[in-house]
């Protein structure tokens, strides 16, 4: 019953963009809890993408704190502020610049609770707009989410819709673990209804976007809309795909994936990041270990080739994954030749 009510409200609610959904989530949580605050470059001006528009007027410069271009200190100071009981949202502007703060994220934030025997509570949210966007070349386009799934101590969220972004951000802000929010720049203007109030979405629960028996497609973040379109085209060709959006890659919904693959016995993982040593490899390995190699009739990973993201539109498109590629590989996995 509660679910029905929530759905009705969601339908009534106006469609908002991905960026706006995140803005509403942060706004809601900052109103709810005075310990929540934001630090990062240009945030008081509304943020690079408008994700903090209007915050300065409402919360003042102490809670929406524009910082110098000092990524290591933005990250490290966020941790310090969490240790004394505040709940910072660390804004990294664009994921690639988080590379300048890797020590603070990897050696400090991720380890501190464990090293200090549980005394520390690194309750930070690190927001990382990531991925290919507008021919921005190799230093502004990276997708390295797999690195962080590999890093004990952190939660890695990879939402694909405005509602999921909002719900996961609310969870992230309320969570005592450090949460890395990978936000796909490619989808920032996508619109969808978002319920009010925004309910938290639990980490590690996939959303099951389509049901089908011929193959399982597992994906997340920017590839979700493309996989949806591909699944529609597959349907027109008589192939029913079971489509799963993981929403978080750590923790990830192993049960949803294994249950689906146990039924379809065919698995395709699609991600925008480089395929080699990407998170798709982890999924395939886990499914194989859990169900046994005999349970699988076909398995494929579809990701970028192992090259940096080039600038030129002519070759950037060469390394991005199109709907057609997904359809083609999915047909292969499903055991049907392309029509």
């Amino acid at each position, binding site marked *: 019953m509660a679910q029905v009510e929530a759905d009705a409200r969601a339908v009534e609610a106006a469609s908002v963009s991905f960026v706006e959904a995140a803005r509403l989530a942060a706004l809601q949580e900052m109103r709810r809890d005075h310990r929540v605050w934001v630090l990062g*470059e240009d945030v008081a001006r509304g943020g690079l993408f408008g994700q903090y528009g209007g915050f300065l007027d409402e919360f003042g410069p102490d809670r929406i704190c524009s910082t110098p271009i000092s990524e290591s200190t933005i990250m490290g100071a966020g941790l310090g502020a969490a240790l004394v009981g505040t709940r910072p949202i660390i804004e990294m502007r664009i994921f690639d610049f988080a590379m300048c703060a890797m020590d603070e994220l990897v050696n400090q934030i991720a380890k501190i609770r464990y090293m200090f025997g549980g005394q520390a509570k690194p309750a930070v949210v690190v927001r990382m707009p990531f991925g290919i966007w507008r021919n921005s070349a*190799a230093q502004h386009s990276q997708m390295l989410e797999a690195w962080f799934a590999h890093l004990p101590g952190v939660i890695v969220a990879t939402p694909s819709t405005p509602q999921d972004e909002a719900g996961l951000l609310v969870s992230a802000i309320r969570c005592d673990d450090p949460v890395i929010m990978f936000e796909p720049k490619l989808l920032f203007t996508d619109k969808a209804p978002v319920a009010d109030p925004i309910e938290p979405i639990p980490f590690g629960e996939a959303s099951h976007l389509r049901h089908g028996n011929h193959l399982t497609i597992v994906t997340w973040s920017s590839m979700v809309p493309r996989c949806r379109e591909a699944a529609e085209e597959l349907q027109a060709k008589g192939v029913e795909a079971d489509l799963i959006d993981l929403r978080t890659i750590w923790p990830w919904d192993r049960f949803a994936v294994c249950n689906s693959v146990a039924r379809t016995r065919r698995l395709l993982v699609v991600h925008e990041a480089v395929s080699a040593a990407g998170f798709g490899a982890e999924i395939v390995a886990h499914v194989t270990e859990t169900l046994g190699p005999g349970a699988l009739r076909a398995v494929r990973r579809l990701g970028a080739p192992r090259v940096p993201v080039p600038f030129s539109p002519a070759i950037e498109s060469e390394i991005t994954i199109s709907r057609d590629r997904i359809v083609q590989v999915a047909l292969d996995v499903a055991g049907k030749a392309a029509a």
Partner: protein
Amino acid sequence: MRNTVPRRLELFRTMWRIRAFEEEALDAHRAQEIAGPLHVSIGQEAVSAGLCINLETADRLTSNHRGHGHVLAKGADPKRMLAELYGRADGYCGGKGGSMHIADFSVGMLGANGVVAGGIPIAVGAAQGLKLLGEKALVVCIFGDGAVNRGPFLEGFNWAALFRLPVLFVCEDNGVAAFTQTATMTAGPGIVARAQSMGVEGRSVDGNDVVAVDEAVAELVEAIRATGEPRFLHAQTYRLMGHTSTDAAAWRSQEEVQSARQSEPIGRLRALLLEEGCSERDLDGIERAARQEMQEARRFAQAAPWPLPEDAFSDVQDIGAEAWRR
């Protein structure tokens, strides 16, 4: 040699080439011939011109995200620069880099950088390498005022002073970092004092006065060549355009921009040259030649071929790149 009309005319010509290059690029961006973000340095040309006129080809240079002027003044070919902005195969990086990542190693330009302060440690290391090889060249490192609050600034300056490396650090201070007034973000008695506190001698100059920049750089370069030690130049200038070509800079007042136009470097040098007896016709001719050169460069870029699909996979690394192409 320095205070001569021919030298000033050369500075004038370099500034016009930079201005014309960037106006052509902006126009191409508006016409959607260039994709991606484009950071132009219109109004800041005096720093590049006054700096590079004092450098030899063997001297190396690292630059930042707003580097067209630096690259051009160092001697790069505008045709290949523009072709890179267009993402074409004839561009300096074969279309892989674009506006923020132009390099021309043949003229000592070791690359622009999309990461703020990213060029600082690279310049320091280049100087250390040159020293190791016994080469006499020096290294120039240009960065913006936003870069001085990042760790590599502190680490790089300390390093250059500690190991006595021939580096000229140049802070091109346009007063803003992206959209933020740098004065609101930088503490302390100023950036020259910061440099000095780490053992690097430095001075400030009016970065819109190309003659003053030329003189200051000449002095600092001479000191570096004589002592092998680093120096710092703080050049105050003004960015007439927004952060990127899609930023209309509505966040600052039109009065501010209008008054800044009064002191932009090309007009200032023009006035000086007229006083010194140059003719309007000659000066207009320099502008016209620069515009023509850049229009030709644009035609070159427009006609240049796109990279081939397989070019996406080249130059990744020597060993191990093939195995995971797909």
